[in-house]
């Protein structure tokens, strides 16, 4: 008897289960519709390379912190991120000083050197390169055009030049915002002064700049600009 009751009960449960609507009755039957083409997976965004201030010693780290404090809410990292995202820096030097102060003495580092290191100002490579390209002529380069593009006096640009480029990711060179006491800085004295120093990471002509400490000569790319 009990066995019969259990059988009826099981049968009832099977019927109930059969009447139960499918779990997701509101959704179209996946098997009854054609499978949509799988959506193409979005291209993975290229990983944004992080900017870095490189390998700075204690002294330069301290100066950089003070500069960042003064520039707040700006600072060297936002400056790199905004203007030097590819971490490539460049600068120009006339052929004469290049030969005299870099080639002839077989300099290890670029820039003005004292006991604390060698200090080289630089701008984003893309800015310098674009200005140089736009100034190239059949005879060489147009100093006035190059000077104007970089907000600098034309006389700083006439005659053969060298464009030096350094990949900071490869060199791990220490970089920071320049400050008033850095070698090579001079303060504006008149409105005619266009290459004088203003704190904040931009030249008085509005070009982004930074200071590289101990930028190695050996791995720099050198371009002749006739």
């Amino acid at each position: 008897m009990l066995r019969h009751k259990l059988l009826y009960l099981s049968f009832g449960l099977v019927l109930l289960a059969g009447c139960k609507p499918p779990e997701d009755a509101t959704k179209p039957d996946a098997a009854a519709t054609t499978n949509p083409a799988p959506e193409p997976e979005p291209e993975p965004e290229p990983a944004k390379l992080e900017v870095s201030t490189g390998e700075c010693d204690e002294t330069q780290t301290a100066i950089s912190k003070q500069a960042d404090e003064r520039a707040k809410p700006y600072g060297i990292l936002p400056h790199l991120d905004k203007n030097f995202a590819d971490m490539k820096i460049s600068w120009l030097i006339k052929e004469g000083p290049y030969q005299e102060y870099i080639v002839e003495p077989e300099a290890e580092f670029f820039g003005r050197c004292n006991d604390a290191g060698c200090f080289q100002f630089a701008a984003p490579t893309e800015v310098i390169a674009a200005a140089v390209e736009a100034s190239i002529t059949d005879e060489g380069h147009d100093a006035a055009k190059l000077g104007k593009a970089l907000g600098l006096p034309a006389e700083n640009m006439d005659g053969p030049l060298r464009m030096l480029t350094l990949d900071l990711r490869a060199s791990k060179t220490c970089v920071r915002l320049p400050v008033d006491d850095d070698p090579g800085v001079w303060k504006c004295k008149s409105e005619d002064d266009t290459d004088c120093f203003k704190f904040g990471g931009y030249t008085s002509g509005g070009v982004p700049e930074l200071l590289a400490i101990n930028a190695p000569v050996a791995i720099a790319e050198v371009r002749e600009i006739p």
Partner: protein
Amino acid sequence: MSDEQVLYRSPMLHRLLREADGQLVIEVVVGRMAMSAVRVRLDAHEARAWTEEGGAFADRLAAKITADPKFGGRAYPADS
């Protein structure tokens, strides 16, 4: 240029020269992202200071020129 004699050279990118006619001249690399060199002829007072102090005087004079690249109109392009 080849007739000049280098009397002093600094890693701060300046040097003191004696030109062929005996004139003492200081050459200083100026500029930041675009660097060039200017020269200033030493006057008698400066020449005496160089004789007495040597490199220390040249370094001070170079610092003054760096801070004022026209140097009161006395500086001229090194490649002129």
